[in-house]
């Protein structure tokens, strides 16, 4: 079942500045990302007939996609919000391909922009909630680190994974961010720095946890046929999949997540296997999630991810470069949208600083993960159609 393999391509990308953007609204960040993506694709607002958005937590207005469409001067034939947490950007690209292939629209913009760093809302304006707070917060289960630390604790217990191995993920991300002009944390670190950073929730140190950022990104998706008439080298959507879990309380275990099913669907559509992949942009909200996802994606066996990520294997120049932009851990937390724009740049072959270009990058895999362990989406992108 190869489904929508190669039917669509990414033809434009936009990345805003990241970090702290106190003078911009979430909407303003998204408009900037859309502007940059259209400029990159050399398209005008009137060319866009599809729009996918995600409700930012700091702007809980109704019918969000239509608000963005109106503000951007876009009159879509297909528009909606997706709500899969950090899996949303990856799923957006898949949904764009589905909508285009179904004949609903021809050119879809997928956009995400938020103000996690400077836009926290007080209760006066309401907030989006996760839904299980009544059974978490009274016990002091607060913030994303705690729930993800449960994954790390189980992985360490079941497989003997160590803090040093978790730290190797953070070290690789930081090395890549040090080579990325649009990254927040660019000072290289060593394993020791991670282990000496303060505890957040054991077994996570501060540097096992991602950044909290403002910023945004957008991508333009169209049919592969139409992509041939646009100026940028198309990056083809070779395969995609989703796999969602029952969350931390009702999943049978915590060391295999939705990525196992999601990647299997994507590999099958793309007709490729893990050893065909040249680089991976893995949703790295916490170091342990990178390790679990690499296992779930079949790059190594379940439980072997700890030693597997050590000794530079996931760094540029290694066997499988992971998060070549620095990821959520060191570039910025833009909910994985910039994992996609980075993969596109790597596959175009002329979009990143030369020191962090993966040599002969032909096939990349991107993961999205979110909703407190509930959501996962996978995207396989190619420089060529085969």
């Amino acid at each position, binding site marked *: 079942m190869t489904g929508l393999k190669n039917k669509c391509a990414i033809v434009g990308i936009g990345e805003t500045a990241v970090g702290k953007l106190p003078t911009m609204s979430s909407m303003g960040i998204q408009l900037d990302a859309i502007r940059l993506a259209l400029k990159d694709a050399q398209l005008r607002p009137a060319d866009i007939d599809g729009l996918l958005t995600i409700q930012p937590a700091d702007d809980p207005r109704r019918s969000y996609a239509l608000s963005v469409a109106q503000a951007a001067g876009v009159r879509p034939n297909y528009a909606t919000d997706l709500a899969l947490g950090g899996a949303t950007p990856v799923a957006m690209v898949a949904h764009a391909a589905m909508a285009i292939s179904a004949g609903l629209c021809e050119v879809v913009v997928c956009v995400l922009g938020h103000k996690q760093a400077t836009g926290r809302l007080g209760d006066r304006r309401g907030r989006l909630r996760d839904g299980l*707070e009544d059974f978490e917060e009274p*016990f002091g289960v607060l*913030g994303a680190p705690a729930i993800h630390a449960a994954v790390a604790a189980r992985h360490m217990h079941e497989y003997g994974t160590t803090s040093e191995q978790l730290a190797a993920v953070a070290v690789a991300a930081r090395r890549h961010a040090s080579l990325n002009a649009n990254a927040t944390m660019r000072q290289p670190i060593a394993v020791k720095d991670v282990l000496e950073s303060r505890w957040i929730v054991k077994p996570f140190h501060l540097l096992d946890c991602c950044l909290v950022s403002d910023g945004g990104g957008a991508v333009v998706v169209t049919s592969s046929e139409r992509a041939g008439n646009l100026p940028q080298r198309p990056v083809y959507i070779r395969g995609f999949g989703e796999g969602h879990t029952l969350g931390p309380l009702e999943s049978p275990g915590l060391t295999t997540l939705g990525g196992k099913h999601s990647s299997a669907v994507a590999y099958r559509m793309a007709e490729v296997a893990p050893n065909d992949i040249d680089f991976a942009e893995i949703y790295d909200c916490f170091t342990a999630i990178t390790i679990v996802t690499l296992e779930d994606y079949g790059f190594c066996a379940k439980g072997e991810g700890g030693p597997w990520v050590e000794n530079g294997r996931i760094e540029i120049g290694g066997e499988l470069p992971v998060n070549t932009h620095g990821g959520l851990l060191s570039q910025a937390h833009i909910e994985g949208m910039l994992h996609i724009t980075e993969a596109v740049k790597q596959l175009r072959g002329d979009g990143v600083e030369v020191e962090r270009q993966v040599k002969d990058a032909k096939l990349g895999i991107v993961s999205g993960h979110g909703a407190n362990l509930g959501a996962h989406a996978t995207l396989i992108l190619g420089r060529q159609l085969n």
Partner: protein
Amino acid sequence: MGDYLKPLPVLDVDGRLFWESCKKHEMALQQCLSCKQFRYPPRSLCPICHFPEAQWTPISGRGQVYVALVMCRSYGPAWEHDVPYNISLIDLEEGVRMWSNVIGCPAEDVKIGDYVKISYEDVTSEITLPKFRKA
């Protein structure tokens, strides 16, 4: 007890009977009247067999630690004096998993696999939290 500053559950339609059972120090869970599975968090349908009706059944209060974490960061003034504190995923004998705290020992001393027994904490006149102590 009007100065309790930590987050409290809302006694909504789905959760009210659960929190009322805790207040009586007789924590009960919904048990499906068809397949007999217990469920948590409370909801109006059995996720296994989709039978809607359930009986609120008192639990044994015994369980085992599935995950033990030590929260070191304080998320606001209400938690400042608590850190570092334990948060755990507890597997109850009834086959459900819940977030709670193992109290009565240093946070670092709680380990995966520890056997625990329920210990109620009356935090306000309305709300009692089901916590655990090592058995």
